[in-house]
């Protein structure tokens, strides 16, 4: 009984911390910027792939034992840079239109999924060459004053032209340096991330065993939450981020570089997604679909927690994680065994699929009482 209880608590916290880690970046991007980033899961996936690459690069070196720490840093940097590009390239045109960001980032997520399936040196060369030609030409032409008028023509000519040139080059190189050049980096197959030896296995206690990997994730989550909290509340950039999210125009007037702040916030959120991706690679598979599994659950965490509140996200993640675990495992069935109808009901829901059904119903019910989530934004600005 004791071991069962311990196990339940540990598993609930551990599921919750995975959710929280995945939702943390989302909470920042969604809560602070109002951007619905459907590609958040794919950013996690990129983090997981980065982990895989770091693992392979360090295989056989003395650093292999601690590759996971290097991978964490690498994942953060890679996804943060990617987030930066995403923000500058797409998101910044869509501020204040959350539904549009949702659709656009969904498009990005599809592209990212296919990207890891199809990426090869050939593809990279083609895309890079295209960008070079197209944006190079644009840079040269854009300085002319009458550019705006000829813009349509310019695009109509330059896009196919640079595309053709890039593809031709890519294909020529492809035939010249075959297998190596055209070989897919990852393909559609899942790749393996094996935790370093000290993270495998578990810590035995009272007849049960606490997985090291999960303990690691719990610690990582705590570190991230504390780090983010500290960053937002105790650093000048954190202050700026909070200022911009509360009143963009006023902040701009006060000389805060809002564009930089936006980019930074988004990069931070994306970087956290990378960390989460690295963490989940210890638990599950790494493949093009990795991110898809988390996206809806993490959004639910943010919605239930209340937007823009870290504390809300923490409680919501733990609650949803624990609820999912308790319902999905037999724990509740056993606990309610004396009350037959109740335990039968729980037994009906005691598979992972059905647990999700019940948890969702509970969330809808919860929102009936607290439509704004656990910690709703208060004051008269809401629903003015």
């Amino acid at each position: 009984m004791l071991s069962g209880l311990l196990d339940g608590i540990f598993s609930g916290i551990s599921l919750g911390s995975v959710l929280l880690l995945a939702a943390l970046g989302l909470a920042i991007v969604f809560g602070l910027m109002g951007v619905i980033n459907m590609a958040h899961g794919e950013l996690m996936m990129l983090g997981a792939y980065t982990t895989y690459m770091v693992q392979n690069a360090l295989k056989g070196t003395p650093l292999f034992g601690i590759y996971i720490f290097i991978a964490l840093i690498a994942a953060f940097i890679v996804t943060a840079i990617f987030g930066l590009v995403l923000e500058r390239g797409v998101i910044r045109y869509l501020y204040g239109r959350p539904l549009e960001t949702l659709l656009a980032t969904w498009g990005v997520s599809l592209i990212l999924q296919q990207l890891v399936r199809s990426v090869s040196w050939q593809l990279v060369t083609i895309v890079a060459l295209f960008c070079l030609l197209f944006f190079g030409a644009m840079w040269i032409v854009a300085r002319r004053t009458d550019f705006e008028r000829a813009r349509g023509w310019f695009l109509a000519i330059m896009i196919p032209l640079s595309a053709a040139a890039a593809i031709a080059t890519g294909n020529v190189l492809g035939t010249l340096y075959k297998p190596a050049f055209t070989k897919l980096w990852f393909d559609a197959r899942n790749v393996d991330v094996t935790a370093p030896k000290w993270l495998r296995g578990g810590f035995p206690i009272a007849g049960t065993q606490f997985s090291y990997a999960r303990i690691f994730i719990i610690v990582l989550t705590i570190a991230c939450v504390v780090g983010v909290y500290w960053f937002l509340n105790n650093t000048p950039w954190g202050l700026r981020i909070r200022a911009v999210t509360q009143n963009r125009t006023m902040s701009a007037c006060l000389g805060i570089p809002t564009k930089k702040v936006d980019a930074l916030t988004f990069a931070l959120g994306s970087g956290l997604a990378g960390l989460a991706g690295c963490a989940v690679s210890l638990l599950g598979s790494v493949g093009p679909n990795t991110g898809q599994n988390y996206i809806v659950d993490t959004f639910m965490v943010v919605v239930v927690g209340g937007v823009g509140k870290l504390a809300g996200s923490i409680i919501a993640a733990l609650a949803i994680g624990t609820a999912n675990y308790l319902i999905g495992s037999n724990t509740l069935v056993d606990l309610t065994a004396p009350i037959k109808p109740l335990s039968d009901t729980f037994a009906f829901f005691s598979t992972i699929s059905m647990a999700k059904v019940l948890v969702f119903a509970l969330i809808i019910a919860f929102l009936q009482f607290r439509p704004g989530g656990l910690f709703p934004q208060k004051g008269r600005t809401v629903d003015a």
Partner: protein
Amino acid sequence: MSEKILQIENLTVDFDGFRALNNLNFSLDTGELRVIIGPNGAGKTTFLDVITGKTKPTTGQVTFKGKSTKGNVEYQIARLGVGRKFQTPRIYLNLTPRENLELSCNRYKNVWNALFGKPSSAERRTVAGLIETIGLDAKADLKAALLSHGEKQRLEIGMLVAQSPDLLLVDEPVAGLTDEETENVGNLLLALAESHSIIVIEHDMEFVRQIARKVTVLHQGTVLCEGSMDEVQNDPRVIEVYLGKQEDDRAAA
């Protein structure tokens, strides 16, 4: 003495530990035009929020036309005959002024009627008249998004009138308007006051002087004083609230 259209007793509103309205008592006669003034944060907008049902009072009650509005939500209170104009003009930007007015003018506001009802010719005439009154005939069939700020303000007041409420709540109607427009709006309100009860919230003292008969001063969630413009202006408490304590003044100087 005429009948009270609105009566508010012991109204208190708390927001998450902040008391926005504190044991407020207020009443308005039918047909009266009342101006409410008060420094920022005095609770003026919250006051309107409570009357229109947007904010639920923590304690106390609002009685409109002799009936408590407790348990009613915004649209029900609006149907009872309370119309509200917001600080910034809120109109349907993707509809034309004519359509905006038609929607407000419509008497039957349930879903069924929206689907199967058609505007009656009387309603159409009302709308046509209103468009003239608010001076938007030239732009009656353009998207409202294209109107200027002043035109939007006038359109919203027009929508309010089209709703033919018994009580009009007008929140800072002349904010951001030119002097000429301000005067137009003032005249419009005075004309409306002939047939409606109106509460106006305003900062612009010139404007208040133009329209006010009776003024209520709110301060820190309660009524500080009430009376004619001159009485209020000479009240020492009001002077203190607006200009700060005399000693402070001296100290600062």
